[in-house]
């Protein structure tokens, strides 16, 4: 029996090796190629203000989108974690929908709703413009990244035993105090994970963003445009720079979570 188990494990190790290699090769190859064969191009990209402003815009817009998700997503995640109600499954499916639908489709839908004549775009047009503007980037990112925030946070709240909230209440904490003194601190790892996932997802969004806001260019749009004009040589240095920044932020994020 033991040998059989080990045989299975060995088999699993081999398969795991393949999937990990796949991810590592795809990510590492452009970085190493760039360092070995195009270091000058890479440095000139590093000095290009257009690239930096685009990266800054992308990171900032994605954080803003995550902020919006936190504001509305934490209450929703809490309700989903704590309450049973008619149609809960339906609500959960709605939350997951942005993961399922193709992003170009999401882009079309967002454009349709948020353009100057759209359902939401029209009434808000005197105060806020979404088309080819930063608010458009933020709503597109927010739409696709919301489930990546809500799901882990809901899981986090589910991991907090309601008895703990009850005890806090019995000791004199109001609902709000029990929430921020007990529920939030216990589930903060999940919340950080949600923030990280949602933020990363926002940065990587392209299709939904370009339909609503091609300009100002997020970094994916910039890479896409440079690829169309200059090919791999022109686009890869930007891609590598973005990859390195994301990896840096991702690693520091994981170390905070520990």
């Amino acid at each position: 029996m033991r040998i059989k188990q080990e045989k299975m494990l060995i088999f699993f190790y081999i398969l795991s090796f393949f999937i990990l290699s796949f991810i590592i090769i795809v990510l590492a190859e452009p970085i190493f190629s760039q360092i070995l064969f195009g270091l000058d191009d890479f440095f000139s990209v590093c000095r290009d203000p257009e690239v930096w402003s685009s990266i800054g815009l992308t990171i900032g817009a994605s954080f803003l989108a995550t902020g919006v998700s936190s504001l509305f997503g934490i209450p929703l995640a809490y309700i989903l974690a704590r309450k049973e109600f008619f149609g809960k499954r339906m609500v959960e499916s709605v939350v997951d929908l942005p993961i399922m639908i193709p992003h170009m489709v999401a882009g079309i839908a967002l454009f349709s709703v948020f353009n100057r004549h759209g359902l939401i775009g029209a009434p808000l047009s005197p105060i806020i413009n979404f088309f080819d503007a930063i608010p458009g980037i933020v709503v597109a990112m927010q739409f696709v990244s919301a489930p990546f925030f809500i799901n882990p946070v809901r899981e986090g709240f589910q991991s907090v035993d309601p008895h703990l909230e009850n005890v806090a209440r019995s000791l004199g904490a109001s609902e709000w105090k029990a929430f921020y003194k007990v529920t939030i601190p216990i589930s903060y790892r999940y919340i950080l994970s949600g923030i990280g996932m949602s933020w990363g997802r926002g940065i990587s969004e392209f299709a939904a963003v370009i339909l609503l806001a091609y300009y100002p260019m997020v970094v994916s749009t910039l890479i896409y445009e440079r690829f169309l004009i200059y090919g791999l040589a022109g686009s890869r240095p930007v891609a590598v720079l973005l990859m390195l920044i994301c990896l840096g932020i991702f690693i520091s994020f994981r170390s905070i979570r520990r």
Partner: protein
Amino acid sequence: MIKIKKICKDWKEFSLKEINLEIKKGEYFVILGPTGAGKTLLLEMIAGFHLPDEGEIWINGKDMTNYPPEDRNIGFVYQDYSLFPHLSVIRNIRFGLELKGTPKDDMERKSNEIMKLLGISHLSHRYPDTLSGGEQQKVAIARAVVTRPSVLLLDEPLSALDRRTQNLLREELKRIHQIEGLTTLHVTHDQTEAMILADRIAVMMDGEIVQVGTPHDIFNKPLNEDIAAFVGVENILEGEIKRNRDGIAIIDLGDIELNAVSDYGEGEVKVFVRPEDILISKKMQESSARNNMRGRIVKMTYFGALVHLQLDNGLIAFVTKLSAEDLGLEIGEEVYASFKATSVHVVKKE
């Protein structure tokens, strides 16, 4: 003092039906009932975690039915300890004091006192996940007691612990109650716990309070067959009172007659005898016991130091392992079971 007036509540698979209870100031009150009776739901309603569908909850002369938990000044201890995992022992204990805005010196003194009382001072900087079950429960008790609640609510506080720790912590609960004098409402399914700790017991079954009384009343004078079976009366017999002379009822069990202290006159009755009240001997004994029944041993089951004897006349009795050896008891052996007329509790057949 707690007054519970006509509380009704339907919640999930539980249903509480017109619960009425009165718990006196400083009393140690136990609600005893089988799993699923609705005990925890009742306790959580007193705490304010659920609102009743009907009825009122009064704490210290004030109608608190619609008050949120934080305004009720209660202490709550769950079976699963429910310590805040992100806070050290000392910060768990100070949680309630901090919320109540206790001055720092006062807070330090109170938390030190309670930790000393429970013997957990050395754990103050540890985190809950590094403590044993017994230690965690002591911290949970300290956290609830330190705020001097008007009532301490304990939900099966010993049920998750091993036997030895249970015994130790039970004594600890008794001691703390004696020292602090807090009105305590303790919910359990464990008879020993109820018998040892309670000033009074309420038996709860299927969402109803079926009997309230002293431990002696509950264990020796259960009101009906269900309660009797639950509180460990193993001998439940049916018979008919033939006559009653000066408070001694003569009960016909079919092939034998029993004497029982009872005020009932003629009629069909149920007869309860606790197995520990039955004396087993090999010869007919001359003693003050008014009831002697002959029977053959059909089954012997060992429970630690006790042997559980089943006789062919339907009686169940306990003897110690030592007595069983001394008497040379074996299956098939004929013995006499004797018990006093005062050990027989009689209720009218429903």
